[in-house]
């Protein structure tokens, strides 16, 4: 019995292969691409083999956020149409061994790929990677259907705003209808100063409303813009967002990490003046 159990343990990673995660949100501009880039880079920094796939055909962006835009030769549509082999479309990120990007096509539209074709491409990649992370386009049309078709689990990104939460709720409903069992919430651009003033929903408020487990809270941080400017994901850096993303990566791996306290950066004096601003 004991022997059998250890055998199972030994063979289970091979049987499972890679984990396919779709990063989605419904609403545009809440940080799907930033989250994909940072979680992917973070996992690669832990020594995992990671493949990022941009499924936003016609509006590709993951390549610029990753700083790999000058190295694109083939793309996802080329793979699907048989113009190249899967391997040829993968761009290796030289900064992080084990990190690859499959860019999307810029001159085509969402109908160039079908959900079935996406599943095929992903199944081909499963053998070679620990994680495959799909950057989903905004919306709930075919681009969304393509992105979720081959995924095992989802990261739902939202900001603490009414519109983004409403769209996230719709997305969660659609993911449930498509048989997703594991959906985790990333709350992006949280401003603790506004939460304290009562002018922004807290992470707990958002979790209460959406009723799925939370996997990370990313504070609103200027360094995200700087890192995007530079084409270098900030995960693991000393900035608050970099730290928060590093924690998300740990939690994606299944580790329990305490949540950061974003209050620390605020001095006593800011707090005192904050009281007067409030009044």
């Amino acid at each position, binding site marked *: 019995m004991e022997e059998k159990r250890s055998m199972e343990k030994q063979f289970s990673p091979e049987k499972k292969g890679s984990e396919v995660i779709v990063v989605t949100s419904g609403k545009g501009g809440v940080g799907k691409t930033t989250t994909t880039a940072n979680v992917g880079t973070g996992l690669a920094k832990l020594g995992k083999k990671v493949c990022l796939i941009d499924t936003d055909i016609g509006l590709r962006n993951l390549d610029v956020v990753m700083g790999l835009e000058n190295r694109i030769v083939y793309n996802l549509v080329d793979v699907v149409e048989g113009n190249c082999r899967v391997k040829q479309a993968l761009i290796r990120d030289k900064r992080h061994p084990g990190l690859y990007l499959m860019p999307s096509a810029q001159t085509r539209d969402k109908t160039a790929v079908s959900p079935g074709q996406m599943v095929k491409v992903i199944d081909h990649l499963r053998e070679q990677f620990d994680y495959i992370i799909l950057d989903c386009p905004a919306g709930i049309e075919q681009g969304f259907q393509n992105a979720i078709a081959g995924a095992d689990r989802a990261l739902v990104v939202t900001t603490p705003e009414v519109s983004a939460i409403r769209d996230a709720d719709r997305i969660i409903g659609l993911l449930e209808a498509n048989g997703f069992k594991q959906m985790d919430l990333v709350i992006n651009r949280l401003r603790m100063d506004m939460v304290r003033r009562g002018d922004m*929903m807290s992470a707990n408020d958002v979790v209460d*409303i959406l009723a799925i487990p939370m996997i990370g809270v990313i504070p609103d941080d200027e360094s995200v813009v700087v890192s995007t400017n530079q084409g270098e994901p900030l995960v693991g850096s000393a900035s608050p967002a970099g730290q928060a993303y590093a924690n998300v990566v740990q939690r994606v791996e299944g580790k329990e990490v305490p949540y950061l306290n974003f209050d620390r950066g605020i001095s006593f004096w800011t707090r005192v003046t904050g009281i007067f601003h409030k009044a």
Partner: protein
Amino acid sequence: MRHFFRRKSSCQIAKDRLKILLISDRVNCSPEIMELIKTDIAKVLSKYMKIDSENMEIQINTKGSKSGRGSKMPSLYANIPIVDVTAQDVAK
């Protein structure tokens, strides 16, 4: 000074609005459809008993059923006044 007695924080307003908004989003049910459901229920029930269809009301809220996502599963509540319980002539 007025600000100290502010009625509601914008955070609370957002939460309240979302709660109502998401119920109707999840149910995906317009007021017209609600009205149709109401008349259909009245039609079916009046086969068996005399009801006051003028004063009946139906609504969807999140109380009750705990299946689905947490306690957020919406359910339909109907309040239908019965004028006469004795069965109408169904047999006929």
